[in-house]
C-alpha cells in the first residue's frame, strides 16, 4: 500500500521502519529533516511537507506530540489528499480534539481514524504495540494491514474519538498502576522488608500485573531511563483530568495520581521514566 508517514520521533521512527519491512511503499515527512535520514536510508521517499506526504497515497499516518501539532499536519494532509484518503493519527491527544479533527477532515473528504498506541518504544521497535482505533468500519478495514505491521493487539474500539478514550483509560490504569507499585515498594522498604522478595511474592497472586513485573523490576534496578517519559505521562493524565472536568466526572484516584506526576515534572524528573515517582515517594517519606 502507498502510505505517507508524518512524525519520526522515538515512536514514529521504528513504526515507520516496520511499515517498510512489511513491504509498504512509504513517503515520510518530519519537522526536522535529519530525523528523516534513517528512513530514507531504509528506502523511504522524503516529502517536503505534510501535504506532499499525503499526495497520491491511500493512507497517511501521523505520530506527533500534541493536539495542535496533529491539527496542523492534518490541515496539510487535507490540502494534499486524493479522494478516498484515510488519515490515521496515532498520537495521544484529547478525545474531543480528535473528534474535531475528524470532522474537519470529513469536510475535506478525508476519512479519519484516531489510533493511539500503548507499549512504548520497546513495543514500537518489536512491532507489538497495542493499537486502539476510533472511526468508521471502512476506514479501519483499509488501515488494518498497516496496523498489523506495527502492532499485535489491534482493537476497533468505536466511532471517532473512541480510540483516544481507550488510551486515556489506559493512562489512568498505567498511571495509578505505576504509583501503586511504587507505594508498595516504599511501604515494604520503610518496614525493613526486601522489596525484591515482596515483588516476587506478589507476582504469583491477584496483584500480578505487567507493571509490577516490568516497571517493578526497573524500580528495583533503579533504572530510571525512559521507556516512557514522565512528562508525557503527566500530559496524558492532564487529558484525563480535563475531560473529567468537562464531563462532570469524579476521578479522585486519577486526580491524586496526576498531582504526583505534576510534582515529578516540577521537581525535575520529567525526562526520566514514570517509575521516578518512586524517588518522589522516598523523598516525601525521608527514605532518600
Amino acid at each position, binding site marked *: 500500500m502507498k502510505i505517507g508517514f508524518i512524525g519520526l520521533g522515538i515512536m514514529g521512527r521504528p513504526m515507520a521502519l516496520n511499515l517498510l519491512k512489511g513491504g509498504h511503499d512509504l513517503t515520510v515527512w518530519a519537522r526536522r529533516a535529519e530525523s528523516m535520514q534513517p528512513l530514507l536510508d531504509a528506502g523511504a521517499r522524503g516529502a517536503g511537507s505534510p501535504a506532499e506526504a499525503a499526495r497520491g497515497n491511500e493512507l497517511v499516518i501521523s505520530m506527533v506530540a500534541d493536539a495542535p501539532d496533529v491539527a496542523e499536519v492534518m490541515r496539510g494532509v487535507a490540502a494534499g489528499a486524493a479522494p478516498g484518503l484515510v488519515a490515521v493519527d496515532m498520537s495521544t491527544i484529547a478525545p474531543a480534539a480528535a473528534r474535531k479533527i475528524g470532522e474537519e477532515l470529513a469536510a475535506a473528504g478525508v476519512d479519519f481514524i484516531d489510533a493511539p498506541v500503548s507499549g512504548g518504544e520497546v513495543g514500537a521497535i518489536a512491532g507489538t504495540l497495542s493499537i486502539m482505533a476510533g472511526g468508521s468500519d471502512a476506514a479501519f478495514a483499509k488501515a488494518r494491514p498497516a496496523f498489523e505491521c506495527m502492532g499485535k493487539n489491534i482493537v476497533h474500539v468505536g466511532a471517532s474519538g473512541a480510540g483516544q478514550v481507550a488510551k486515556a483509560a489506559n493512562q489512568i490504569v498505567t498511571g495509578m498502576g505505576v504509583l501503586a507499585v511504587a507505594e508498595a515498594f516504599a511501604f515494604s522498604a520503610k518496614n525493613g522488608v526486601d522489596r525484591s522478595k515482596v515483588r516476587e511474592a506478589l507476582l504469583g497472586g491477584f496483584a500480578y500485573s505487567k507493571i509490577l513485573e516490568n516497571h517493578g523490576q526497573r524500580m528495583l534496578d533503579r533504572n530510571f531511563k525512559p521507556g516512557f517519559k514522565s512528562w508525557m505521562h503527566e500530559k496524558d493524565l492532564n487529558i484525563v483530568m480535563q475531560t473529567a472536568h468537562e464531563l*462532570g*466526572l469524579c476521578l479522585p484516584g486519577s486526580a491524586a495520581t496526576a498531582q504526583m506526576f505534576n510534582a515529578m515534572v*516540577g521537581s525535575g524528573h520529567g525526562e526520566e521514566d514514570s517509575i521516578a515517582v518512586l524517588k518522589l515517594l522516598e523523598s516525601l517519606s525521608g527514605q532518600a
Partner: protein
Amino acid sequence: MRVGFIGLGVMGRPMALHLHKAGHELAVWARRPDSVGDLPAQVCATPAELGRCCEVVFTVITSSADVEGVALGADGLIEGMVPGSVLVDCSTIAPEAARKIAARLGQKGIHMLDAPVSGGAQGAIDATLAIMAGGEAEVLDRVRPLLDCLGKRIVHVGPNGAGQVAKACNQMIMVAAIQAAAEAMRLAAAAGVDCAKVRQALSGGSAASRVLDVMGERMVRRDFAAGIEARLHHKDFGLVIEAARQSGVPVPLAAVVGQQLNALMAQGWGRDDTSSLLRVLELQ
C-alpha cells in the same frame, strides 16, 4: 467620569450601580440587551463603541474566552478604546489569559488591570469586595477612586496576571474550606449529633472561619439556593489545576476537592450554592 461596564450579572449589576451612585456616568454593553433593565446607563451597540466613549471600562464576565472575545475580538474594546484609557477586568480568568490580553492592549497604548474580586454577591451589594489587582501601580492609582466605590480591601499584588494568581489562591482556600465544613457537618450528622450545635461550638474556637459561618449556616439550614453558583467554583478549579500544572507544583488537596466539584456538577447542582458539596457527601 464616564465609566463603561460589561457584564451585568449577579456581581456586575450592583457594582455598576455603586459607580452610578458615586456620580459617575455609566455606559454599558450587554450580550443580551434586556439584561440592562432599569440601570441608568447609555447602552452601546458593541464593546468597541463602548470603548470609544469611556476613560475606564470594567468587565465582569465568566470565562477567559469571553473576556478575550470582548476585549480583542471583532468589534472588541481594542477597536474603540483610546491610548491611555484603562480596562479593569474583574472577571476570574486564567493568569496567562490576563497577561496575553494586557500585552495585546498594551501594543495600542491601552492599560489593563486584572482585578478579580472576592466577597460574593453580598460583598458586591455591600461594596465590601476584596479586590486583588495585577498591573502597573500608576494605573491602579488612577482607578483607585473607582475601586473604592466597590470594595474595602484593594491590594496591588504585582504585575499583570498577579491578581488572577491571588484569586486562584483564594478559590483554593475557600472551596477546600467549604469541603472541610461539609465533611464536618456530615460526620456530625452521621454520629447523631446536632449540626447546628457543632457549628455554633466551632465558631468560637480555632476552626472558626467565614466559610464555616456563612456556608456552614447554609448547610445547617439546608438552604442550597445560590449565594455563589457552584458551577463558577467548578470553572475556577479548572484554572487552579492548570496553573499548578504550568508551575509544576503539586496541589493534592485542591485536586481532590476538584473531583468533588465534578461530582456536584454531575448531579446537576451547578446553579446551586457550593455548600451543595455536603449533598455530594450524602450520596455515599
